[in-house]
């Protein structure tokens, strides 16, 4: 019994880590630009898909495929900001939502149409080998611990970056007042570009890590995006710590809940919880102020 519970716990933490990485991406873009990037889930999907492509089709080893995939997805994130977001000056929140949704649909469509596997779901092998450890009678795969470790390391890294470095100061200045930041010599556009690149990279890391535990397909971005957003909301869309705790909490909830609710209704259940959370917290969620 105990071993079963430990298994649920570890699985919850590692799935939750991926939600946490998506949530971190949301908070970074939102903190710096006030934009909620609806294509965040597609970065995750793309990260897994590109890594799989490099590994299976090109034949690169995993340790080379992973960083290359992260780099490629980062470029996609930078292009999104540079081409679409920057061109839409003075855009309202509704317009920015529509633009990032357009980007998300575009990425999904391109992968679904031109990918070597088209609509097939793919799965990467484990980084840590197929051997699992035994912990208090539970079979625990080392990769699940690796995922959690990487997530926490990235959270600490971004927290230090924002709070301890000159770059972090500039990023935070943009969040508080873009014009004032510009007056003291901060290039707000560069900061916005940086935030999209960083969010895409985080998404890709999440995508590569999840691609060895769960199957990834061209249409898995939407649900990942929604769950990541929920996790980010738990931390008020601006706290890195809150985003990671939110993601881990959500992962645990799902993992322990999975045994009790049929799998088809599981998604409907977690989305209903999501709706209820938003409605109950409606007054306390931070408003988005968008400036360019």
């Amino acid at each position, binding site marked *: 019994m105990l071993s079963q519970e430990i298994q649920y716990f570890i699985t919850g933490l590692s799935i939750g880590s991926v939600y946490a990485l998506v949530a971190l991406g949301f908070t970074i873009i939102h903190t710096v630009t006030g934009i909620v990037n609806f294509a965040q889930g597609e970065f995750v999907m793309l990260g897994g898909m590109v890594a799989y492509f490099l590994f299976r089709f090109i034949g690169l080893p995993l340790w080379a495929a992973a960083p290359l995939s992260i780099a490629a997805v980062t470029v996609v994130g930078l292009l999104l900001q540079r081409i*679409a977001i920057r061109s839409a000056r003075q*855009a309202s*929140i509704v317009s920015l*939502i529509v*633009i990032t949704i357009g980007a998300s649909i*575009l990425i999904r469509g391109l992968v679904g*149409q031109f990918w070597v596997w088209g609509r097939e779901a793919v799965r990467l092998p484990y980084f840590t080998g197929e051997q699992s450890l035994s912990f208090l009678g539970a079979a625990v795969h080392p990769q699940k611990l690796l995922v959690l470790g990487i997530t926490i390391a990235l959270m600490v890294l971004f927290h230090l970056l924002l709070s301890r470095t000159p770059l972090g100061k500039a990023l935070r200045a943009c969040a508080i007042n873009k014009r004032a930041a510009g007056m003291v010599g901060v290039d707000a556009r560069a900061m916005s570009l940086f935030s999209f690149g960083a969010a895409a990279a985080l998404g890709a890391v999440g995508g590569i890590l999840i691609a060895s535990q769960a199957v990834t397909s061209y249409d898995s971005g939407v649900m990942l995006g929604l769950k990541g957003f929920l996790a980010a909301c738990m931390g008020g869309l601006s706290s890195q710590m809150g985003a990671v705790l939110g993601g881990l909490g959500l992962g645990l909830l799902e993992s322990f809940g999975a045994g009790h609710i049929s799998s088809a209704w599981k998604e409907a259940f977690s989305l209903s919880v999501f709706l209820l959370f938003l409605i109950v917290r*409606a007054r306390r969620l931070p408003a988005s102020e968008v400036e360019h």
Partner: protein
Amino acid sequence: MKLKGIRLKWSYLVIVAAVAALAVVPLFANRYYLDIAIIIGIHTMVTVGLCLLMGYTGQISLGQAAFYGMGAYFSAILSKTYGVSPWAAMFIGAAVTGGFAYSIGIAVLRLRGNYLAMATLALGIIMNIVFTEAASFTGGQDGITGVPYLSVGGLVFDTDRGYYYLVWAFCLAALLVSRNIVSSRTGRALRAIRDSESAAESIGINVLQLKAKVFALSAVYASLAGSLLAHYWAAVGPKPFDFLFSIKVVVMAVVGGLASVWGAIFGTATVKILGDWLHEFGEYQVIAFGLMLMIVIVFMPRGLWVHLRSRVLQWQRRSTRRAES
């Protein structure tokens, strides 16, 4: 002033010409084009509802497929399984969907911008799961077949030509109602909400209630459209009411111009015709939708239709000025 008068007459002329063109289409069109025209009519109803909500009231919805599907399933289940008359099924469906949207709206429309978008996105996905999984009512993946046709007296709408007139009568009625709302006191209240909710509140507009009413109206339009689809195909299944349809409605509304009632026909027709054409080469639709959303919003924020129309008016004015001098 004179110029304005002329332009006004022109716009009436265009409407009369458009209605006349719509009336004679079935005399020339073959079955394939007639089918496209019927689907455009049905989708336009969903689009114009979203235009009222997004363009005039400033509230986003990424879940219109939920209401479209509810209408279709209410019609199919009530008329096929329970033997209710198809017209009664259609209007019961619209009333229940409207009521459901109003009560959901009162809760959800407290949210703004990004949160509202995420909440409606979630709502659409939840309803699609219900359509697929509540198999004892909805028939699951297979859906429901053998939905009875609509009929008036002895006239059964089982031919494409007859159905074409029925659908466009509904569609034009929806467009006229929307146009009247937009140019009424309520329409001004809606735009006040879009421009500043707190200012609207301060002049005595019940913001939340009015937003929920518009949300419910858009749901009623979508539900009627869904019923029309169910009685046209004589079948329903979960596929046409998925996440992608909700996004497609946004594309149609954006292309036609979010704050343009007549643009809804143009946007819907453009997306439908382009989508069908691309479909012949593969699944390029989704790629095209993504590109269209981004390009139209970035370069023509008021929509392709409004953009082209203002270009034409500009050219007209310039040529009149040249003629006068």
